[in-house]
């Protein structure tokens, strides 16, 4: 937060605005057109677009390449980077390479375990963890050095993001871990999808009590649910998700053709509630394989036009 | 086909089910060749004993253990049950068919039940045919 702005996301947040980011999952293939199509749907209605890094451990087009395609379209990407697949040598190299391509935001993650993905027989790396990755990017930016202490010829000046999951356990420790991520160098936080508002508020309260909301920009994650099946899947099969029974009942309670509409309604209500919570500086809208709904949600939430 | 041979059954049993003086041999059936092996407790039926019984030519192996809850050593019969399940799986793995091995709980001295279980094993053996390893070695011998 101390350094000069390098991108729009950082500008919006540092000027006290309410940021909106969305998500773009790269294709399982080499077709750049798919990335551009998703980019078109998101352009203008969000400040930056997160590009996932082989999410759920399924082999996809690399995050860096997909980010570079967005950059050429004038869209600001947030490059997600997981420590699952690359050691510290490759991670640092890719951070520098990404910055050289005009990528100015990074979200540092450990990554879903490979047992969930398309290659459960793969060797995982986890040479360093997400906390270490945050610190690495910060050291590169602030000290202009790589992890070995070498002076870089041109330091990557990334705006650094990290993830937080208020719905994982042990609950009390979650805020302590958030503090560690901030100390390590996180400028902004994107959270797991918020469905359980009560728990999210409790977490935010703890973060505020610790003074953390003054030190970092928290973007609350939201995901519109498209179907009852998706709601149930997220409730039971996705690690670290908390979808209250009441929401599933609500989705089940409407006629089938209206279910997606109800999902959007829930999402809009959530966004409205999140905007009321002190310390929430934005939303991260993850419309999974439903990018065409983003503009509508951002618009109906009253968050258009973007600065 | 040569003449029909009798099924060979090896019966391991706990002495607390049938002791020395008991009339277990009386359950012997005309249709089978029975070989009784008594153990101080059914838990002493080690994996290798069961395997060796098959190596010795048994077409089926029966383990008679005390009723559940009635083991003199508390859990001997439960251990025997687990071991038998393990070896049944091994027999399946080597193509011998785990059904050739069975364990039954029998009340002390209950010769009628024991006879019924042995009859059951005999019919299983008859259905599955002779021990494939023994059958092969018999024919090997014949060729010499």
């Amino acid at each position: 937060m101390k350094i000069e702005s390098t991108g729009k996301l950082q500008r919006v947040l540092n000027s006290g605005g309410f940021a909106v980011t969305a998500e773009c999952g790269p294709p399982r293939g080499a077709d750049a057109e798919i990335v551009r199509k998703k980019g078109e749907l998101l352009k203008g209605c969000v400040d930056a677009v997160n590009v996932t890094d082989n999410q759920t451990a399924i082999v996809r087009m690399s995050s860096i390449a997909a980010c570079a395609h967005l950059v050429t379209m004038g869209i600001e990407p947030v490059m997600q980077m997981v420590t699952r697949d690359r050691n510290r040598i490759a991670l640092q190299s890719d951070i520098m390479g990404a910055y050289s391509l005009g990528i100015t935001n990074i979200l540092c993650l450990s990554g879903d375990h490979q047992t969930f993905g398309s290659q459960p027989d793969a060797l995982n790396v986890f040479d360093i963890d997400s906390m270490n990755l945050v610190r690495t990017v910060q050291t590169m930016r602030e000290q202009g050095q790589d992890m070995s202490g070498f002076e870089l010829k041109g330091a990557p000046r990334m705006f650094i993001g990290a993830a937080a999951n208020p719905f994982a356990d042990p609950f009390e420790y979650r805020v302590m871990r958030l503090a560690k991520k901030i100390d390590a160098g996180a400028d902004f936080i994107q959270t797991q999808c918020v469905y359980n508002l009560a728990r999210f508020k409790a977490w935010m309260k703890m973060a505020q009590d610790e003074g953390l909301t003054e030190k970092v920009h928290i973007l609350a994650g939201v995901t519109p649910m498209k179907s009852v099946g998706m709601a149930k899947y997220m409730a039971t099969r996705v690690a670290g998700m908390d979808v209250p029974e009441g929401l599933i009942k609500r989705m089940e309670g409407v006629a089938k053709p209206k279910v997606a509409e109800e999902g959007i309604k829930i999402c809009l209500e959530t966004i409205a509630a999140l905007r009321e919570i002190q310390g929430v500086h934005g939303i991260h809208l993850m419309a999974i394989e439903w990018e065409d709904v983003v503009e509508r949600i951002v618009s109906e939430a009253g968050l258009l036009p973007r600065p | 086909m040569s003449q029909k041979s009798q099924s060979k059954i090896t019966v391991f049993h706990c002495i607390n089910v049938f002791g020395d003086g008991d009339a277990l041999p009386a359950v012997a059936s005309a249709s089978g060749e029975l070989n009784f092996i008594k153990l101080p407790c059914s838990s002493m039926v080690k994996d290798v004993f069961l395997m060796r019984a098959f190596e010795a030519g048994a077409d089926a192996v029966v383990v008679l253990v005390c009723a559940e809850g009635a083991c003199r050593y508390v859990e001997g019969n439960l251990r025997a049950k687990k071991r038998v399940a393990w070896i049944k799986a091994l027999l399946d793995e080597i193509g011998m068919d785990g059904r050739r091995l069975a364990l039954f709980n029998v009340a002390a001295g209950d010769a009628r039940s024991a006879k019924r279980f042995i009859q059951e094993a005999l019919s299983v053996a008859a259905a599955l045919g002779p021990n494939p390893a023994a059958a092969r070695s018999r024919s090997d011998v014949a060729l010499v």
Partner: protein
Amino acid sequence: MIVGEQKPISEIKQIIAPYQKVLILGCGTCVKTCFAGGEDEVAVLASALRLVCKTEGKRIEIEEQTVERQCEDEFIQESAQAVSRNQAILSLACGAGVQAMARRFTTAPVLPGVNTTFMGVLEKPGLFTEECSGCGDCKLAVFGGICPFTRCAKKLLNGPCGGSQNGHCEVSSDIDCAWHLIIERLKALGQMDNLRVYLPPKNWAASLSSGPRKLIREDHML
């Protein structure tokens, strides 16, 4: 101890297929304790292989022997005569034992009959759990005696990840979240401050990452 599991019979059959005289050599230390390669397992495997070979009309002679430890030359020597009588050795030791045998008997094929799985403990009868990955740089003092490098599926140094729920790992509800255990333990010890500090990247140079390691004790060499 080293924990291992006997290979499936079908794989063992394939491995020993070229040989008619095979020595099955057990190891009386770790793999005996985990029921993979002690004297009893040698006997059962020998019996199973004899039965399967007879069933399939294949001739095989199997000799059985178990030495105290296949990872020490002193004990390995006891098998020399049996080795010379056979065409191949099917070792039921861990991978270290198999290699120690291969080192000593340079002309005899030494074949593995066990998959060496991990370094662990007997948690309760019939249950063995992995506890240590031999990283060469033990940090258990910081983590309340619970190793995150081994017991966290992501080897997290500053865990837990966002997949930890109700004390379970995201990989499987059968796996305890190591970080949950660490936090519970440090709370009980009054050492939660251990987790407030940022832990820098682990130095993996002491691990297998730098190639096979050696322990040299000059004072024991002549």
